[in-house]
């Protein structure tokens, strides 16, 4: 049984300016001990998914579909059960540790809070456990007496990871955990995440726009565009031999140093990621696609087979139905 199983997830924000469909029919699974990387740019809906899994969105947001966490449908849980599931079933390492930590509380208190709120330990024991967690993420346990401002960016991110592990979740969602960090510190944090995930057998959902980071940490990779998954498969294969033209464009933005094909040849996409309220007809990527055909504005692509264990939502995928005017 998968740790996380998402089926036909739809998330629509209600704003003064109308409905904003941020996520439009997303399905994926994460098995125990596997890391799924979710890549995409602004407006693709990836961060929305993270909030939906723990039902952190405001009550006005419309969420449809099923989110099975350890077999339970999160979207159907009563408030009490939901609160119990949060942090013990799945936890989040947020983006920008700057604002995720309370500046007037000591680190240890904040970590212990998670433990105590779930009734997993009394006050004393919670602090002991907090110290152990902090050690586990590579900081000396005495740091639990520090305030957030006494820590550097990388250290704060480690504390965020310790907090996420506090209640022994089965799934950890990492939402842009290394975006604001320097490359060296980023490498340290990624190394930590990988080793913890491996040692604890965690399932992980890693969300970021940085495809090169995902390729390094993920087992499987899912690329999102305009609220949908447009390609999915084993991480390295998707990155090295992408099928969907968007994935090709995205991968080209992360050149490999030493590869002369990239030297002097910056390549990018014209246009912009679409506004969720103004998604183009048919395949949402067709206005910017380098391999666009005449049928693309008219058909709604699904994730068709694109190789062994891979899918892509494009007419050029090998498993796509035959369309007139599309050569393969």
């Amino acid at each position: 049984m998968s740790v996380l199983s998402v089926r036909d997830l739809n998330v629509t924000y209600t704003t003064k300016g109308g409905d904003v469909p941020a996520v439009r029919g997303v399905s994926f699974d994460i098995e125990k001990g596997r890391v799924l990387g979710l890549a995409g740019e602004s407006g693709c809906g990836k961060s929305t998914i993270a909030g939906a899994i723990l039902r952190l969105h405001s009550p006005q947001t419309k969420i449809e579909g099923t989110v099975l966490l350890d077999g339970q449908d999160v979207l159907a849980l009563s408030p009490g059960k939901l609160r119990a599931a949060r942090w013990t079933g799945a936890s989040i390492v947020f983006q920008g540790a700057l604002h995720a930590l309370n500046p007037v509380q000591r680190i240890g208190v904040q970590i212990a809070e998670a433990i105590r709120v779930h009734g997993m330990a009394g006050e004393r024991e919670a602090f002991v456990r907090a110290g152990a967690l902090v050690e586990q993420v590579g900081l000396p346990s005495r740091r639990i007496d520090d305030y957030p401002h006494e820590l550097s960016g990388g250290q704060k991110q480690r504390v965020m990871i310790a907090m996420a592990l506090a209640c022994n979740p089965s799934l950890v969602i990492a939402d842009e955990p290394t975006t604001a960090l320097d490359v060296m510190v980023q490498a340290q944090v990624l190394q930590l995440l990988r080793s913890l995930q491996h040692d604890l057998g965690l399932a992980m959902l890693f969300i970021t726009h940085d495809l090169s980071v995902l390729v390094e940490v993920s087992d499987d990779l899912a690329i999102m565009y305009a609220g949908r998954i447009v390609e999915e498969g084993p991480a390295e294969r998707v990155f090295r031999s992408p099928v969907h033209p968007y994935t090709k464009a995205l991968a080209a933005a992360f050149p490999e140093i030493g590869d002369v094909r990239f030297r002097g040849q910056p390549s990018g996409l014209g246009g912009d990621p679409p506004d969720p309220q103004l998604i183009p007809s048919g395949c949402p990527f067709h206005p910017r696609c380098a391999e666009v055909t005449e049928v693309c504005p008219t058909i709604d692509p699904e994730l068709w087979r694109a190789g062994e264990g891979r899918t892509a939502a494009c007419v050029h995928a090998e498993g796509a139905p035959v369309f007139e005017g599309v050569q393969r």
Partner: protein
Amino acid sequence: MTTTEPALADAPVAPPPGRLTPRKVRWLRRRRALGRFWRQYRASGMGMFGLVILTFFILMAIYSALGYGGSTNPIETLQNPTLEPPSLEFPLGTDNNGISVLSLVIKGSKTSLLVGLIASVISMVVGTLIGMAAGYRTGWADTILMFITNAFIVIPWLALAIVLAALLGQNLWIIIMIIGLTSWPGTARLVRAQVLSVKERTYVERSRALGGPGSHVVMKHILPNVMPVIFANTILTIAIAILSESALSFLGLGDPLNITWGTVIDQAFSKGAITIGAWWWLIAPSTCIVLVVLASTMIGFAFDEIVNPRIRER
């Protein structure tokens, strides 16, 4: 994946007919900005309500300035009944000289609003100049100016006003000066804070990198981004100025030769309106003051909501 673009040397230079000159661009921009502002303002119920009330009183003031409103000369009203409660002939009643309180209110509106406006303009100008100087030129200038500003804030303005009025006499213009010169520090601090924040923005640095001298940077970038805050603040200052004038007049420091809402209240009190039970004499001018202050506050809030994106609800 890059689209083939024409060589840069072929870049078009001549625009098509119906071209936009720089002046036209500026005009169009201003018109568009105003239109957009008005649409946003209209959406605020509170702002519209306040605007309607304020407009009402402004029209009243203009009406009085044109000479209408009835007589406030006690000699002319000898025939009128004195201390009459509101009736059809005298909608707001009469005072102890038989003068219609409605006439007093109308006449008073002109001076009250004028005092509020002029005093607040003085406060705005002085406060803006000092705030901008302190915010833009940090260092010694900032320290000295802020010291002066803080000193002014600390001084209790009422005591200062009483002393100045006693020394300089009770003249309307003196009152305006006093109010203006004691309320600029609030504006100065606000402006300084805003300037400090705007100064750090990248587009200001870009302007400097383009070679813009200090005056250009201030006029083109800092001032336009500080002005909205100043305007929102000025509306509120008008309300405070009117209140201050009323307070001074009520304490007997007002200009006895001019009729303002404050002097009317003062008169009512000293002639024992409360003991006699002539409630209309007091309530009418007080209500006017309250309404104008309320209207200004509402307009100020609506302004602030538009100008300050953080207040706008999601």
